[in-house]
């Protein structure tokens, strides 16, 4: 039971947003642990003296953000944090994690040079004898591997990258801030992939199990500068797309 209601009706912030922040704080501080059932909508209405619509909106948003899981007929539960991934152009893994307040670690599995194989030369618009810098990184959240990322960059775009310590670095930031290569366009393709033995071992999944595969082609102007293949644990990521309809003149 709360002694004084933290929902302040005099604040300009909408009630459901205030409630969303409050409930999110409970989850993040561990007051509501992962797997536990949260109070029912009716209980939350009474607890915070707000309408059912306000509670519904706050809970729905928390579910959308991956904090809660609603189970028909059973209730709403705190779930293992899913990392929301907006399809924004510059949403690097680091930025997403920092924004979401999630601590992560990066292990560089490979940073070497190779020739284009399969259709990488076509994707990156390079000749088939042009060297590519190959970077493979494993990202973990709470010591659990969640993302296996492979990047292919034509060496002539950024040869200095081979000397760079990329363990804690964002490739996007390096391109833009350090090497003055602005990323102006990205093409994203999302699909379900089945992991091979090596990928499964790294991500802690069973061989041939499904994972989210995001392939991205980054451009600076009209020049493709990086092809990235990100294999994500399906239980730790979800994508959302926000579409704003622009007012017509």
């Amino acid at each position: 039971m709360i002694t004084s209601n933290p929902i302040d009706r005099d604040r300009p912030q909408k009630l459901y947003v205030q409630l969303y922040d409050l409930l999110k704080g409970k989850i993040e501080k561990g007051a509501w642990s992962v797997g536990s059932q949260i109070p029912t909508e009716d209980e939350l209405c009474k607890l915070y003296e707000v309408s059912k619509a306000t509670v519904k909106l706050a809970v729905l948003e928390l579910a959308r953000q991956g904090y809660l899981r609603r189970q028909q007929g059973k209730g709403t539960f705190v779930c293992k944090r899913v990392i929301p991934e907006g399809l924004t152009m510059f949403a690097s893994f680091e930025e997403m994690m920092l924004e979401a307040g999630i601590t992560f670690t990066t292990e560089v599995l490979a940073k070497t040079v190779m020739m284009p194989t399969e259709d990488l030369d076509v994707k990156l618009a390079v000749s088939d004898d042009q060297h590519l810098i190959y970077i493979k990184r494993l990202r973990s959240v709470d010591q659990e591997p969640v993302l296996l990322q492979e990047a292919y960059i034509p060496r002539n775009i950024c040869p200095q990258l081979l000397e760079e310590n990329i363990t804690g670095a964002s490739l996007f930031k390096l391109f833009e801030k350090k090497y003055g290569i602005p990323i102006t366009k990205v093409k994203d393709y999302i699909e379900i992939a089945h992991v091979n033995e090596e990928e499964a071992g790294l991500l802690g999944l069973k061989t041939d199990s499904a994972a989210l595969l995001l392939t991205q082609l980054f451009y600076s102007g009209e020049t493709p500068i990086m092809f990235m293949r990100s294999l994500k644990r399906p239980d730790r990521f979800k994508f959302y797309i926000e579409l704003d309809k622009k007012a017509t003149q």
Partner: protein
Amino acid sequence: MPNGKVVKDVMVDVFEYPHVPYWFTIKQAIGIIKKSLLVPEKCFHPLAVLVFDEKYNLMGFVTMKDILKGLEPHLFKTKTMADADVSYVDENALAGIEAGLFSSESKKLAEKPVSEIMVPVKTHVAPGDSVVKTAFLMVYNNTTILPVLENKQKLVGLVRMVEVYKEVSDSVIG
């Protein structure tokens, strides 16, 4: 050495050569050789692919000879062919096995990683080493190419027999 040239004067850029990581298959290396080496304007001797580890350390070289050996190991396991340097080859014994060489089994073997067929790097030279020392190391190690490492660590180039030979022979004959 009369002209006193050192390795850095004659070495070539590593990016003149195709690179592969050690986990690439023989099949992938075959494709890369075809695109990167077997064209007249890129025919850069010795015809070799450089094999690197995941930290971009040079592990070894793969030549066309190594690929042929990898695709048909029996060829070099046969007693009569055991020593590649022998001047005499038992033609009858070769005829007996010839028809079975480079068969469907070779296609399977092409899926092996290049690390299994590469010639590992045995030695290296430094940018300041003399061409004479390099010539000695090449002959001693039976190789036509050597990596050039700065501070014994950073790969800065490759030195090839063709340049070393030119320097040494010029200094001898004049």
